[in-house]
């Protein structure tokens, strides 16, 4: 009986982070829902107990249904029949199981049929789903579209669509077009007002739309005729029940093959404006993307978990030269590195999820009443932290998922290159994570701002100020040195005031920040649970320290006149 929650103690560790008390209290508003909903908690302990129990249900469905289906889904994949997507049979079975388990709409308020769980809990289910099947994980993560609908839709729209999503209908976000990928300002899908019918009409083409035949779509379209940039774009809700959008084809992809990636044609499709005109890209999609990036971070972490488990099992099982190959340091050090990167990814994943939980819940509270000054300051602080950690975490977790999947195959040797072991699927699936929802290069563009304005440093200083168990002092001292190096390098690059040069070194500076932050996070994990995390803390900090030294060597010896050779 596989249970992906109970067999993975690190999930419990992150679910029970000390900050959860504050998050739960914010989220539950003095547990007022208990009077109206028979499944609402009556106090903090009750809420945590419910999270535990629901994570166990999720872990069981994921371990017993989704994981065993993964291989078949990868082989069969979805099809297009009469302009509609037909999922692989395993995908349908997965969806039905999660619906029966009542896991849809985990983070939505109860009044719309959700469970009102924190983002942290939703992200934990995503982490588990990705370990089982990263392709199905895309469908799972798209539930997050409901967050955007909840935040920016009007009450009528919330009441119409969110309960449907909570009952298991799927969602998609239709952003990308043939000529608008990373640059969404170039979106051309045309939205025309239809006052007679009290709606809008959409015409045009979208491409690379994940789960593009979903029940409820959020669509980015050009509502302002004659405009060319992001300010002419608005967000629309398209309901599949209204018709007008067809699936022309689905992509034949390298990985996440169970996830239908669709080309869509809109023919006078009826749609409704979500939020205000012209804020589609600059406000709503940015918010949508941040949520999606957190989801990909979780997907990448789940993939790293899968890679680690496959590699570990094989290394214990496979015998060469008279012993299990795990007994060779050449293999075991790779496993130690995979585990350290996995634990580090998971640490920043949940740290970010908690930041998101605090600021989003405060924003939600603000809709009901005025926040006091302390709450306003808190909202601002955590929003900024979420903004800073989302690109950083996405960049690190997704690059590590790729490295871990690569190493997992390496540990399998020739067998890993065959289609016989799951590691080859994990390797193919991981490859998209550092590309979609913004490539790592674009994450660096978002993160460098926080390097230059000092957001990362401020947070590092918060970590430094924490009192830890004394046996962690030596590691902490090494992190202090890494922090000093990071600070020095940032100053050195920034003071050139040469934008090309700053852009050129941006990736390295962001990496230095990341290694330091991930080191601190693992230290904090080891402080709470020494036995579980000390190995990863030691291995990661040694690795991060060497990486920072490498970055230092490069930046300090770089002659700015040589920049021409790189541009």
């Amino acid at each position, binding site marked *: 009986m596989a249970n992906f929650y109970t067999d993975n103690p690190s999930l419990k560790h992150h679910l029970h982070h000390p900050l959860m008390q504050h998050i739960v209290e914010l989220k539950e508003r003095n547990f007022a829902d208990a009077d109206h909903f*028979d*499944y609402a908690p009556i106090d903090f302990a009750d809420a945590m107990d419910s999270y535990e*129990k629901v994570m166990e*249900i999720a872990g069981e469905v994921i371990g017993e249904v989704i994981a065993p289906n993964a291989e078949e889904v990868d082989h069969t994949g979805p099809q297009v029949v009469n302009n509609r997507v037909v999922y692989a049979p395993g995908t349908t079975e997965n969806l039905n199981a999660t619906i*029966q388990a*009542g896991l849809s709409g985990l983070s939505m308020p109860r009044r719309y049929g959700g469970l009102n769980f924190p983002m942290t809990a939703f992200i934990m289910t995503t982490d588990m789903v990705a370990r089982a099947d990263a392709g199905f994980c895309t469908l799972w993560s798209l539930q997050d579209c409901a967050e955007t609908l909840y935040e920016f839709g009007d009450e009528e729209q919330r009441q119409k669509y969110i309960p449907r999503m909570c009952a298991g209908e799927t969602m998609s976000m239709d952003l990308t077009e043939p000529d608008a990928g990373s640059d969404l300002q170039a979106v051309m899908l045309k939205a025309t007002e239809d006052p007679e019918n009290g709606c809008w009409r959409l015409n045009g083409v979208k491409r690379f739309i994940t789960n593009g035949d979903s029940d409820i779509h959020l669509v980015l379209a050009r509502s302002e005729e004659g405009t060319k940039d992001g300010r002419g774009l608005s967000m629309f809700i398209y309901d599949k029940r209204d018709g007008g959008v067809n699936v022309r084809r689905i992509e034949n992809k390298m990985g996440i093959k169970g996830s239908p990636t669709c080309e869509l044609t809109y023919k006078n499709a009826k749609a409704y404006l979500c939020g205000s005109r012209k804020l589609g890209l600059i406000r709503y999609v940015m918010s949508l993307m941040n949520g999606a990036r957190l989801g990909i971070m979780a997907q990448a972490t789940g993939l790293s978990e899968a890679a680690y488990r496959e590699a570990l099992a094989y290394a214990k099982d496979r015998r060469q030269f008279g012993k299990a190959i795990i007994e060779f340091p050449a293999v075991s050090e790779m496993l130690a590195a995979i585990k350290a990167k996995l634990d580090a990814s998971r640490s920043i994943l949940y740290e970010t999820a908690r930041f998101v939980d605090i600021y989003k819940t405060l924003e939600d509270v603000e809709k009901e009443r005025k926040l006091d000054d302390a709450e306003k300051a808190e909202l601002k602080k955590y929003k900024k932290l979420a903004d800073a950690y989302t690109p950083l975490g996405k960049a690190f977790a997704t690059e590590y998922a790729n490295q871990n999947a690569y190493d997992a195959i390496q540990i399998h040797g020739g067998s890993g290159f065959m289609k016989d072991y799951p590691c080859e699927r994990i390797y193919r699936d991981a490859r998209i994570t550092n590309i979609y929802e913004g490539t790592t290069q674009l994450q660096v563009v978002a993160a460098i701002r926080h390097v230059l304005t000092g957001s990362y440093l401020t947070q590092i200083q918060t970590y430094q100020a924490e009192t830890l168990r004394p046996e962690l002092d030596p590691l902490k001292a090494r992190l202090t040195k890494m922090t000093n190096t990071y600070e020095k390098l940032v100053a050195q690059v920034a003071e050139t005031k040469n934008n090309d040069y700053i852009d050129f070194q941006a990736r390295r500076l962001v990496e230095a920040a990341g290694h330091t932050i991930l080191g601190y996070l693992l230290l904090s994990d080891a402080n709470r649970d020494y036995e579980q995390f000390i190995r990863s803390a030691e291995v990661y900090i040694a690795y991060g320290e060497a990486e920072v030294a490498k970055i230092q060597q490069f930046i300090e010896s770089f002659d700015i006149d040589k920049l021409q050779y790189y541009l």
Partner: protein
Amino acid sequence: MSLKIIVLAKQVPDTRNVGKDAMKEDGTVNRAALPAIFNPEDLNALEQALRLKDQYPESTVTLLTMGPPRAADIIREGLFRGADGGYLLTDRAFAGADTLATSYALSMAIRKIGQFDVIISGRQAIDGDTAQVGPQVAEKLSIPQITYAEEILAVKNGKITVKRRLERGVEVAECALPLLITVNGSAAACRPRNSKRIQKYKYAKTPSEKQAAADEYAPLFDSRDYLNLVEWSTADIDADTQQCGLSGSPTKVKKIENVVFQAKESKTLDASDAQIEALIVELIANHTIG
């Protein structure tokens, strides 16, 4: 249409992963080494009941189980998966029951519950493998039965159509309500526990569980009646104690032996087709395979 459905379920030791410590020295089951679980085919039965309720939402699914106080887990598990309520028969007088005494107790409890349209149970429990309790309950209640069911196909005009999975084929049977159905393990797996329902029912307890341990959520038992699970004794179901438990059980265990499998003889074959073929023929002939 609404149906009153009763599901018979049993808590059993998980005999599917038996290790060497599964039996005690004295030949009795070492319950501590085997986790107590919902009998697998009873879960298949529950799923068939819940599917009827999906189809006819006004229907009610009620669990009935007999066992020690901890068998209340069965009722809770059923509630988490979609049942409406349940009854736990627990009393020292029920202990040591064979299939006859068990079916007597269950049938008395069903009489006490009153009206019903369909009783569904698993074909057999993994601890005894008798497959007798379901049929005996039907006999005692003087209602028809359909055994080895794989799927309930339809309920119409007071009749039920059921697909039976038999050794060498499939049979579709029709029967008038009320009846008892026993369900095979080849039927659809039971749906998972539901996230909302587990939050709703997680504190549900029987009176003896409430007595056994102080509960910080005790005030909830007054305001949320659905958290109070029903527990019945022999007196509650008007049962004749002579027909219950050990005294009502004609089956007496004479002796239990701990059988340890070990190879007594060995054979060496070469890799020739002829030898392998001869082995296959031999294994089929002595019913090891085939």
